[in-house]
Every structure is written in C-alpha cells, then in structure tokens.
C-alpha cells in the first residue's frame, strides 16, 4: 500500500520526478529562447487594464503578500486575485516549469528567487518587463536586488525582497565565554575554537553544506565563479574569492568546529534556541524566522555586520531574496504588471515591511522610520541600520548560472563530500564545477572553465 512506503523513498522519487520535469521543461523552453522582443505596454495600457479589471492568479509563498492582495483588491474592486501557495522555492519551480511545459495552468504572476531567475529568463519562460517601463525603476531599488533581476539585457522581474547579509549572534554565549564578536572571518575561526574548547557542545555555527550560503560568502569575498553572457557560460572556482572562502572554511571543517546540523531542521531551531549554535550568517529576512521559530531565545540574539575578508572592509553579499515575475504564458500582462508595481514599488512595500519582510527599495531602506525601528527580539536593537548598510555594500559583479537551480541541487553530492569526509573543500568545489559544466553543456550552453 502507498502508505507503507517510507518517507525517504517518497522524497527520493519526488526528487527524481522534479529533476525529470525540470529537464524536460528546460529543454522545451530553451527551444523558444532568443528572439521575442519585449511587448510594449504603456502606463496607459496598464491603467486601462486596471479599470477594466479581471482575474489574476498569483503563485507565491511569501506570507506578507496575503495582506497586499487584500489591500489591492479593496483598492481595485474589479480585480480578483487568486493567491496560491504552490510550494516553497524548488517545489514551486517544478510546478511552474511543469505547467509551462503542459501549456495549461500557468499563473499570471509567480514568485521567483534571484538565484533561480536567470534560468527562467534565459528560457523566456517569464516576460521581459522592459516593455512595461520597468527600466525607469533603476533608482527605485537597491543595487543588489536590481542587478539580480537583470539577465540577457532584459529585466525579468521586480525585486520583492532582499537578503543583505549580517551576522546574528547569541550574546549570552559570547559573554559567558568572554569572546569578542568577530569582525573578520579570521577572528571568526578563532572565536569558533575558543567557544568549542570552552564547551564541546557549543559550535560557532551549523553547516552541512549549503549551496546558497557558500556562494554568498564567495560573493562577499569578491569571487566571480560564474560568468554569463547569453548562452556562453564560464564556471571557475579557482579565482581568489573562491579560494579564500575554501581555505577559511577548510579550517573550520578540519577542526570539527561546525555543528553537523542542517539549516531549517528541527535540531537547528533547537540549537538556535539553546545556544549550542552561537552565530548565524544569513540574510536580513531572518528576524521574522527568529521571532516565530526560536521564541525561547528572545532577547538573547543580536545582529552585527558580516565578518570581513579584509580587516576594516565593508563588503557584503546577498543571501536569498526573491522577485515577482510575469510568466510568458500569461495573457493578463498589463494587469499583472499593475499588481507587481503595487506590491513591489507602491503601497505594498510598506504593508510588507509592517508584516516583517525586508524591502528591496532604496526609499524604504533609507526611511527614518525603517532605520529607527527597534527589534524587541534583539533586545531593542535597531538592527535595520546594520541591514541597510549591508544592502549598500553588496559586492558588484556577481551572477548566478542560468541553471543554478540544478547546480544547487547537486551541491551536496559534490562539495558536500568535504563536510562528511576527508575530501578537501577545494576539490569539492572543483567537482561541483565539473558537474555544472557537464550539465550545462548537455543543456545546450557553451560552457567553459
């Protein structure tokens, strides 16, 4: 019977299916790529669509959008929005590619994370928004997210939120063992040793191999392992930034200074609550998760700038964050754009900030109200000041692969080896590079080292 099959088997077959669907969808979409000039839709057209009204289907898992949709419908009674949570991240991409391949059930608006956007953009599965006048929004968004929605000289989404990185740390643990909060990654390794020596149960951080985290730290270190020019792609993890990350993290791995706990697991939430995981370097969207997921440690955590690769530096990177896109198959482009504009540029931005999201617009990031808001969870700290500064200092020149979703899915098979065996991290990155090149070539990209 179905119910007797173990969850692991189910998960395995679900993944296999996801991979299979992703393959077919990608292949199918790729054939249509190249050509189609962006539709020209003027502001008047958008206004006309709003006046006329209609039905929109929005696929998103971002919780604060619910209120935005409500407000939008109240303001435009002609418009009826069906907000569907079709899965988080990868699950939704599979569903979306699936619907695009099947040619039916494609939503009018879809949430797509920055790392996954190039994949949809290159396949022309989502519309180039330049024709809607999105090009004028350059100064509206902070630089990191804005560059993340560009691909192929087009603009494929409007930034919804962003994840400028910061270091979250448990003050109680640091005070107890008299350790200074690290400002460089070198100090971070040192702090890791001191803490773990003082109490073998305490780790500076958890890490079992996380593609998003590793690429973000390489990004901060100034590494540019991915170069993308249309379908010409370079993958190379031997540049200085990547090497720097690998060497530093290798020390933590060699000395077993990282808790063998996967992020988002139950053990992870527990570790964050009890203090066995002392720090967390991640995106500025984390406070919401802290508040709801780790209520036991309220008041103990603080935010600090991300440790630096160079002493006195200010470099930062993005981790996570997503955009709203309009799938190519949508026949409601103008109306969909009206919603995008409302949610990501207009009144929706403040609604979402109030709901705990981290904005991507410069105006919101610079507003006094935003900067001065005190986080009860962080003991009254004005953490947004740190996050906003981080957003300004995101290293330039980073890009993701046009098949990053697949690449990230094989991170643990390749780089992950370094976390569980004697394989050096450097070799792990090399085999990730090789596997990515192989896959990209199979998909019809021109990939080189």
């Amino acid at each position, binding site marked *: 019977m*179905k*119910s007797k*099959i173990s969850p692991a088997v189910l998960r395995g077959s679900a993944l296999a299916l996801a991979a299979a669907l992703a393959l077919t969808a990608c292949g199918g979409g790729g054939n249509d790529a190249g050509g189609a000039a962006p539709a020209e839709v003027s502001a008047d057209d958008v206004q006309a669509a709003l006046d006329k009204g209609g039905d929109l289907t929005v696929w998103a898992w971002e919780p604060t959008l619910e209120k935005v949709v409500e407000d939008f419908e109240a303001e435009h009674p002609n418009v009826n929005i069906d907000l569907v949570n079709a899965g*988080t991240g990868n699950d939704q991409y599979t569903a979306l590619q699936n619907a695009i391949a099947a040619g039916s059930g494609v939503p009018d608006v879809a949430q797509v994370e920055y790392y996954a956007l190039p994949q949809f953009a290159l396949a022309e599965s989502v519309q180039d928004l330049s024709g809607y006048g999105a090009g004028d929004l350059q100064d509206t968004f902070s630089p990191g997210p804005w560059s993340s929605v560009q691909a192929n000289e087009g603009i494929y989404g409007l930034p919804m939120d962003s994840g400028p990185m910061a270091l979250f740390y448990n003050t109680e643990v640091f005070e107890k063992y008299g350790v200074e909060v690290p400002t460089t990654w070198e100090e971070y390794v040192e702090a890791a040793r001191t803490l773990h020596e003082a109490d073998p149960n305490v780790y500076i951080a958890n890490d079992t191999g996380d593609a998003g985290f590793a690429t973000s730290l390489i990004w901060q270190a100034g590494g540019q392992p991915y170069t993308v020019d249309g379908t010409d792609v370079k993958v190379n993890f031997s540049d200085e930034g990547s090497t720097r990350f690998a060497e530093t993290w290798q020390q933590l791995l060699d000395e077993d200074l990282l808790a063998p706990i996967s992020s*988002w697991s139950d053990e992870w939430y527990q570790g964050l609550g009890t203090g066995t995981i002392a720090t967390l370097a991640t995106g500025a969207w*984390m406070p919401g998760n802290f508040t709801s997921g780790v209520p*036991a440690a309220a008041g103990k955590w603080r935010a600090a700038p991300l440790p630096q690769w160079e002493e006195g530096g200010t470099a930062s990177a993005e981790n996570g964050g997503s955009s709203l896109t309009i799938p190519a198959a949508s026949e409601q482009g103008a109306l969909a754009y009206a919603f995008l504009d409302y949610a990501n540029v207009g009144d929706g931005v403040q609604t979402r900030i109030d709901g*705990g999201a981290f904005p991507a617009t410069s105006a919101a990031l610079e507003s006094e109200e935003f900067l001065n808001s005190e986080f009860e969870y962080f003991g009254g700290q004005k953490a947004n000041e740190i996050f906003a500064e981080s957003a300004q200092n995101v290293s330039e020149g980073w890009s993701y692969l046009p098949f990053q979703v697949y690449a990230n899915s094989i991170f643990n098979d390749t780089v992950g080896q370094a976390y569980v065996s004697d394989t050096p991290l450097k070799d792990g990155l090399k085999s990730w590079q090789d596997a990515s090149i192989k896959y990209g070539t199979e998909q019809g990209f021109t990939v080189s080292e």
Partner: protein
Amino acid sequence: MSVAVEPTRTDKHRTRQRTKPGYVRMKSTRRGVDNPKRSVLLTVLTGIVLIYSLIPLVWLFINASKTQADLFTSFGLWFSGDFALFGNIGDTLAYDDGIFGRWFLNTVLYVVLGAGGATFLAVLGGYALAKFSFPGKKAVFAVVIGAVAVPGTALAVPTFLMFSEMGLTNTPWSVIIPSLISPFGLYLMWTFASEAIPTELLESARMDGAGEFRTFFQICLPLLGPGIVTVLLFTMVATWNNYFLPLIMLKDPAWYPLTLGLNAWNAQASTAGGEAIFNLVITGSLLTILPLIAAFLLLQRYWQSGLSAGAVKE
C-alpha cells in the same frame, strides 16, 4: 504515520479480549486451545512491541500539549510548561482562516468517494469473479495479481501525465479517480466471497426466482459484511494517508488533503520570512489520526473476522 501502528494496536486489543475469559477459566484448571500456557518470553516480547507502537502516539499527544517555546526546550516524552492542548487545537482550527477544516473536509471527501468507491467496485468485482465463470477469468486473475505487485507510487507519474492531457489535474477528481482502483481489495473480496457465499445458496435463490440483482443485494451482501469492512478499512487508511498522489496532482491548497496541508505548514518553518508553527503541525497531526483511531475501534470486530476468513479450511 499512523498506519504501521494501527494494526498492532488492534492486535493488542484482540489479545486482551481473548486472555480475559481465559483468565477466568484458568481457575477451573482447564487447559486447552482456549487457554494456552502463558509464556513469559512472549509476554515480554509483545510488551516491548506494545510500547514501541504506542510511544509515537504518546509523544504526539504530549507534544501537542506544549507551546512552541516549550517544544524545543523541554524533554520530549513528558509534559512541560502550561497544558496548551486546547489552545493549540483552537489555533490549529483557526489558523489561516480555518484552512485546516477545509483540508479535513477534503480528506473526508476523498475517503468517502475514493475509498467508498474502491470498496464498492471491489465487492462487485470480487463477487463476480468468485461466483460466475466466464471466459478470460484466468487472465483477469493474472492481471489482478500483477497489479497488487505494482506500488501506487510507480503509477503516480504516468497517471499525472495522462490526467494532465485530460485537463483533470488540480481538481478533486485527480485524487478520487486513481483511489477508486484497489487490486488488493478486489483480490481480498474475491477470496472472501468464494468462501463466504455457498454456491448452493445462490442456486436456491435463483430457483426461487430471485433476479441477479436481488440475489446480490439481499442475499449475498449481508454475508459479505466482514469482508467489506476489511476492504473498507484498508482503502480508507490508504486514502486518508495518501500523500504522493495528491502531491503530484494538486497545486491549489484549497483542495489539499490533510497530509499535504500539514506538510505545507511544516515547510513554512524553512521559508525565509515564513512563520514557524511547529505546535500547530503537531496538534494538526494528532487531530488527523483521531478519525482513523475511531474507525478502527468501531470497526475492529468486523476487521478481525474478515482477516481470519479462509484461514481455516473446512
């Protein structure tokens, strides 16, 4: 989740019922089939199995009574902090405009139509195969036996592609229609019907002028009762706990069954900016298995006689 546990629980119950009368009779020093000699080893072994089966349920109950903050900071197998069970139940039912209730009704719909339909078809088919001879019966037998061996998971993807062509995905039908097929149920009914309905009875019914429909509904159905309940329980549990099929077929949370809904709630904890609601996931799981427990307790008498049907050759 609960499937593996349930039958054991029922077995336990049966054992207890049997030993009780035996215990009384032991005083009369009569020993026999009704009153086998007690074995310490077996008692200990069954005791261990009992504890092993019950611990997940106990854990579920204990943790459904904790607040989110207490969940991670207290010992898992004992109560701690405020007894928040009723608050949790209230929150579970109210969260997200009461979507849990909707999922519950969806699951009931899938079970009533899917499992009910599967049972009905299995009874019809099993009866026909057991009591009528027609050309190709052996071929049907081979197909049914073969179908029992194919796991539903393996068929989910081809079914999805087929339903996608027909435009049925993301509708309740995409879950109900595949649930209607239960080769195992058909086989069970077939075996049961050939044992439970004496061919002579059918002959005399026909002789007295009863039509085929009347013979089936008025004479045979009551005899098939225990078998029907057994198949119903099997298909009910399978449909109630079905996860993979709806996962592939459904996108719209408004049509989710409880299994998918709970998983979606659980996934919120791994979403940037998502609200972690572990206490509601656990309480929701507890509420999800209650109807199954109730069904087993109510129907277990039939279930037992159904399981042992054909065990003894007359």
